[in-house]
């Protein structure tokens, strides 16, 4: 891949994960993500117990044939809770990423194309929002709005907008002066038509990578906020919250922490690997979302 851009003697800098076979690098993460999406849709139907039922068995028993992942401190079935928990985190992450990345990219592209005062004002605003670390900003917003699914989406959107705006802006900047943009302008196209119909198709691959990376970050943020108790509220099963609830008996019932942790870990890694496979310069991109 990318052989056309690489001068003689310069190796492509893509991370060599999963070997050199590009197809596999793309197929494995796609399969895992697809599996999780199926889980989000059908998980609640496949759950053997209700995720909120107390005493489905003796509390804090290890994995058995009746309870594949064991039971938690209230005797709830961990397997059912993990299955049902997939829906909320995936749905919230996808919606928040869609809102945040689209709004951010739109702002960034407009800012980059128009330049001048609009650009200056929007970018200073972006700088201010970026002066607070993402998790802290989300926490502050959730504090004033109160914890709930909708507010979680609002908080993540606000966190994502400035970062996506920067990415989209820097993707647009080199294209501004190109011939086809000039041509569109000369034939009298309005600025929004130039931004969204002429420029956007050309930066779509970059925006797709941005979406993917941001989706991984949304999963991480939402599960972290859930862990801190600011996400989905109990008794709805949430992977992050399950880990913090089970934290105190990890020494006697490690499975109550292990399986939700595994569920989060696998999907986050898969989405990251997907973003990496989509972009040829994984390192530089990855650094953008810290």
């Amino acid at each position, binding site marked *: 891949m990318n052989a056309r851009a690489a001068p003689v003697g310069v190796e492509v800098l893509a*991370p060599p994960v999963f070997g050199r076979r590009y197809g596999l690098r793309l197929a494995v993460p796609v399969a895992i993500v697809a599996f999780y999406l199926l889980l989000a849709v059908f998980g609640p139907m496949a759950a053997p117990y209700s995720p909120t039922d107390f005493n489905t068995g003796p509390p804090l028993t290890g994995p058995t044939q009746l309870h594949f992942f064991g039971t938690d401190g209230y005797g709830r079935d961990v397997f059912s809770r993990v299955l049902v928990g997939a829906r909320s985190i995936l749905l919230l992450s996808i919606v928040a990423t869609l809102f945040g990345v689209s709004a951010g990219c739109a702002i960034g592209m407009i800012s980059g194309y128009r330049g001048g005062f609009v650009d200056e004002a929007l970018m200073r605003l972006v700088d201010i*929002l970026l002066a607070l670390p993402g998790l*802290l900003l989300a926490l502050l917003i959730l*504090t004033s709005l109160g914890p709930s699914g909708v507010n979680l989406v609002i908080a993540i959107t606000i966190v994502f907008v400035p970062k996506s705006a920067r990415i989209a802006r820097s993707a647009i900047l080199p294209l501004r002066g190109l011939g086809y943009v000039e041509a569109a302008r000369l034939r009298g196209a309005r600025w929004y038509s130039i931004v969204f119909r002429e420029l956007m198709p050309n930066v779509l691959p970059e925006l797709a990578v941005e979406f993917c990376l941001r989706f991984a970050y949304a999963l991480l943020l939402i*599960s972290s906020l859930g862990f801190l108790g600011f996400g989905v509220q109990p008794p709805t099963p949430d992977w992050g919250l399950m*880990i913090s609830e089970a934290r105190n008996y990890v020494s006697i019932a490690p499975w109550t922490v292990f399986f939700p942790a595994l569920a989060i*870990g696998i999907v986050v890694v898969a*989405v*990251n690997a997907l973003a990496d496979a989509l972009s040829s310069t994984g390192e530089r991109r990855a650094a953008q979302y810290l």
Partner: protein
Amino acid sequence: MLRFVLRRLGLLALTLFAVSVLIFSITQILPGDVATMILGMQATPQDLATLRSQLGLDQPAIVQYGKWLGGVLQGDLGVSTRFQRPVTEVLAPALRNSAVLASAGILFAAPLGLALGLICALRRNSPLDYAISSVTIFAAAMPEFVTGGLMIIVFSTWLGWLPPFAGTGSARTLAQSVSELILPVLALSLVILAYILRMMRASAAEVLDSSFVKAALLKGLDRRRVIAFHVLPVAIGPTLSVIALSIGWMAGGLVIVESLFGYPGLGRLLVFVIRNRDIPLLQSIALIIAAVYAMANLCADIGQRMLDPRVGTK
């Protein structure tokens, strides 16, 4: 150079001012006000009104903000509504604990990340490179409470080597305190270790392929000399900004890791303060984190200019 530093310092002050406005306005729209927090639900409306005017809560928001900012600039962060003590007194021990944790994390992750990244770049596409790069993609993606939780299961529950909680005051000896810190530091720094490593690998690889390195090698300079004096200073430049970003990332990481391990630092205090709606303390913590973050970014920019004279001269 001096002009650059001064301009950036000015920008820093402006950004922090804007952030203070942002923090103040977010905390202003919090439900439930300070007076109710102090007096409790049973307070009479008269008592509440008296206390509000004592605290200046009946004044317009802009006046309150002016007073708060004036206090902050003079080192007076106000009084914690929950602890009924000056904010500075409550903050000091938590800040110290967090500083210990965060600096241990950086001191662990930065040198190791730089060294491993350079090794990967030097042996590109070797099995070692594949192995390290594959591990980092996992490490970089995981939330801290997941890696931390898994580490607790392995090292504490199964192997019994390390305690599952930290800074609980149960440690009697130095060795005990150090062993308590190992897991939180690992959980906190794994993500940034991965980022530093990947950035270093990418930038070192780019420098290694550049013509000035080839020229140095071709004129017969010792390979080790070239790596130490030609490659390293330039390759570290872009990595520095990742290290600075990591410090910002750690602010979030601290909240998670401290909550997971019950470590009495700034991050756990922040969660506690949010739950208890202690607004003066909340504003101060947010401001401190923003200030540290902004200064880390500034240091990275200055450092990068000093290491690579080409930056900014275009």
